[in-house]
Each structure stands twice: as structure tokens, then as C-alpha cells.
């Protein structure tokens, strides 16, 4: 509604440029790529700054505090100040670390997040590329940052980060299966893995109405995927101090932080698209509905975080394998049965 006209106007303009100057036709998608990438990069940066501020404010108000108040209106530019501070921090590298792996880990943690935004439908026509394996692509690409987390934890050479890395690997791996299985029901209903097609299939009724169980499983597994309380054992402050990123400082730490918050939004955006009808909504532009639904889920995750204690690692694992996984299979079987028989 908002983004699509702008982009198509830009497209036409480029085509005009290509035609006038006789440039090769691959110029158009190349220019698109650059513009889209910069837009997404900027969006993520602003989004994360806002999300961190929101987290602090929400937590503060749950805890009967004010939270940041000094920098800007109600501390609204506090995160910018924090980011600037992090930039000026010395970037220490522990002597006993595995240096190449230690340095690559932030890339592995952050880059997949930005790639995942390729298939997120922000609004009507506002999707960068509607891949025909959209959902599969999303789950595949978001899993890569586990490798960043575990390699960061392992390479640091600290025992706390090692414990954090292993916990993280075990946890993300365990919750990955129910997560994808819960999305499977949606794929069956929509008959496509394209994000756009899934949104279109919900033009009348949201899939959450057909798949309430899958939605609950998805939210639980997603909370675990992004390391939010009650599943935040990879960075459990009281046990292993900060988990995998205990040795990271300065900008490298900021990258992990950025990835964490961007992932939180991503997982909420996926939930909004798969279960809550994506950008579809009455009267207002699709971009608004998409953001509203995503932020509703982000807020839900924040409420979890500031109200629940943390599970223990064995409880976490047995919950995933002995409860969530059978439940997800059950949901799959029921969905399949109903779909085939009706």
C-alpha cells in the first residue's frame, strides 16, 4: 500500500534509465538489490534501537519503575547513546581464544537474520522476493545463527561461554523440530510455502482459527529459538553469567545483541504472517497491520520475559522432546486427516 508504489515507481525509473543509456538489462535487479538491502539494513537498525528501548520501558513499567528517562523524550534516544558508547568500547580478545572462529562468530550470528528478511511480506506487494520455498528458506536460514552462537561460545575459551554455547545448541536444535512441524499445518492449509500465498490464503479467516494448537506450539518454540525467558538458559545470567557472549565486548557484542533483537522481531513477523493473516487487515495500509501484529507478539514475548522464572536445562529438553514434539505430530496428523477427508 505504501511501499509497493514507491518501489514500482523506482523500478520504472530504472528501466527508463536502462533504456536511455543502453545499459545491460541485469542493471535493474542489481539496483533493486542494493536499494532493498540498504532499506532492510536501515530498517533493522532502527527497529532494534526501538525494540531495545521498548524492552526497557516495558520491563520498567512491569516492575513499577520508569526505565530510561533522561536521554530524549522518555529516554527515546537512550539506545542511540548506548550504541555510541559500545562503539567506543575497546574490543578485547581473550588470549586463549580460537581467534578466527571468535571473529567469524558475530558474522554468523547476524548475517542470517538480515537474509531472512528477504521473504518477509511487509505489506501488499512489499516483499523483496517471494521465494517458492519461503517458509523452508526462513527456517533454514534462521538456524544458521546457532552456528554463530555455538562457535562464539566454543571459541572464547571460557567455561561459561562453553556451557552457554552447548546449552544454546541443544536448545535451539530441540525446539527447531516442533517449530517447523507447527508451520507444517499452515503449509498444508495454504498448499504453498510461498509467504505471499500463505497471506493470500488467509484473506477470509486467519490460520490461527484453524490451527490454534500449532500457534501455541509455534509461540513456545519461537520463544525458545530466540532465547527469551523462560527458555533463556544459553545466557542465564545467574548461572553462566552471560553465556556464549561472555568474552565479547564492544561492537562484536553489539552484533550479537543486534542479532538477538532482530531475531525476536523476525520470529514475531513470521508468526504474524503464518497465523495472524500477515499484512491483511481492514481500512489501514497493510504495512501498519503487519507491524501491529508483529509488535503484539513481540510484546507477548516481552511479557513472558519479565514475568517468568527460567527453566532448568533438563526440564527444557524434556519439554521439547516429550511434550512439544508429540503434540506437534498430533497436530500434523489431525490437520492432515481433516484436510484429506473433507
Amino acid at each position, binding site marked *: 500500500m505504501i511501499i509497493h508504489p514507491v518501489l514500482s515507481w523506482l523500478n520504472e525509473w530504472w528501466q527508463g534509465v536502462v533504456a536511455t543509456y543502453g545499459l545491460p538489462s541485469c542493471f535493474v535487479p542489481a539496483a533493486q538489490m542494493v536499494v532493498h538491502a540498504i532499506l532492510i539494513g536501515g530498517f533493522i537498525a532502527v527497529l532494534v534501537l526501538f525494540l531495545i528501548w521498548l524492552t526497557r520501558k516495558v520491563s520498567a513499567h512491569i516492575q513499577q519503575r520508569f526505565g530510561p528517562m533522561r536521554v530524549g523524550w522518555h529516554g527515546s534516544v537512550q539506545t542511540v547513546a548506548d550504541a555510541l558508547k559500545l562503539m567506543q568500547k575497546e574490543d578485547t580478545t581473550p588470549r586463549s581464544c580460537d581467534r578466527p572462529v571468535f571473529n567469524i562468530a558475530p558474522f554468523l550470528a547476524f548475517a*542470517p537474520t538480515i537474509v531472512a528478511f528477504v521473504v518477509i511480506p511487509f505489506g501488499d506487494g512489499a516483499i523483496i522476493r517471494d521465494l517458492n520455498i519461503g517458509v523452508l528458506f526462513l527456517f533454514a536460514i534462521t538456524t544458521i545463527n546457532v552456528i554463530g552462537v555455538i562457535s562464539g561460545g566454543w571459541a572464547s575459551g571460557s567455561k561459561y561461554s562453553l556451557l552457554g554455547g552447548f546449552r544454546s545448541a541443544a536448545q535451539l536444535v530441540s525446539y527447531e523440530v516442533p517449530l*517447523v512441524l507447527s508451520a507444517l499445518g499452515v503449509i498444508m492449509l495454504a498448499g504453498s510455502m510461498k509467504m505471499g500465498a500463505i497471506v493470500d490464503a488467509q484473506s477470509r479467516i486467519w490460520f490461527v482459527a484453524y490451527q490454534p494448537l500449532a500457534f501455541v506450539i509455534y509461540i513456545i518454540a519461537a520463544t525458545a529459538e530466540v532465547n527469551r525467558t523462560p527458555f533463556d538458559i544459553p545466557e542465564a545470567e545467574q548461572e553462566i553469567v552471560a553465556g556464549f557472549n561472555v568474552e565479547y565486548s564492544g561492537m562484536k557484542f553489539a552484533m550479537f545483541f543486534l542479532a538477538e533483537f532482530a531475531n525476536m522481531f523476525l520470529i514475531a513477523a513470521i508468526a504474524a504472517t503464518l497465523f495472524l493473516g500477515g499484512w491483511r487487515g481492514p481500512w489501514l495500509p497493510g504495512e501498519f497491520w503487519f507491524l501491529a501484529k508483529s509488535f503484539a507478539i513481540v510484546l507477548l514475548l516481552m511479557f513472558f520475559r519479565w514475568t517468568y522464572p527460567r527453566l532448568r536445562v533438563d526440564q527444557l529438553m524434556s519439554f521439547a522432546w516429550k511434550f512439544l514434539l508429540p503434540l506437534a*505430530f498430533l497436530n500434523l496428523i489431525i490437520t492432515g486427516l481433516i484436510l484429506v477427508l473433507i
Partner: protein
Amino acid sequence: MLTDYAFVAFFIVFGCFFVAAALIGAWFIRPQRPSRIKGDIYECGETTRGTSWVQYNVRFYLVALAFVIFDVEVAFLLPWAVAAKRLGLYAFVEMMIFVGILLVALVYAWRKGALKWA
């Protein structure tokens, strides 16, 4: 189709560039005064005892194995899920046999204690 994946590839490069730009940008303004103590790993203020690169508890690898099995299963389920409506009952029954076999495997792993954390 190919341009789609060119986008994906470009975004991967851009993601790495994003991180690199942030790290290099900070490199210009941050101090760089390493010292021996700063190079120590965090150990609650004590000197480290032993290395952290050890043969870790095998439990974690069992979970990783279980994950590989079930994730591959999901990968097989996906194509069927897309076409579930069209393929009808026959494919459904076939798929359920496949899922059933893996559920038996899950029960087996459960019974054997592979999912237990102790």
C-alpha cells in the same frame, strides 16, 4: 527464479558487509590498549583451572543426533504438506506410516533414556 537467489546471495554478502562495516567503523574510534590482564578469560576473578576445550558430556551429541533424524523427517514432510490436499488419502496414509516409524523411534529413544538429561 535465478534472480531470486541472486537476491539471497547478495543479502548474505550485504549482511556480512553490515557487520564488517560496524566493526571497522568502531575500529577507528575505539581505544586499543591490550594488556595481559585484559586478555584473560572471565573466570569470576580467579585464575583459570584447566582448559575449557574438553570432551564434553555425550548427552549433547545424542540430542544432536535425534535432531538430525527428525529434521530430515520434516524435510521429507514439507513437499507432501504443500500438495497434501491434491494427493489425497493414499499419500496421507503413506506419510502417516513414515511418521509412525519415526514416532516409534522417538518412543525407543525415550525408553532408552536418550532424552533423559542425567
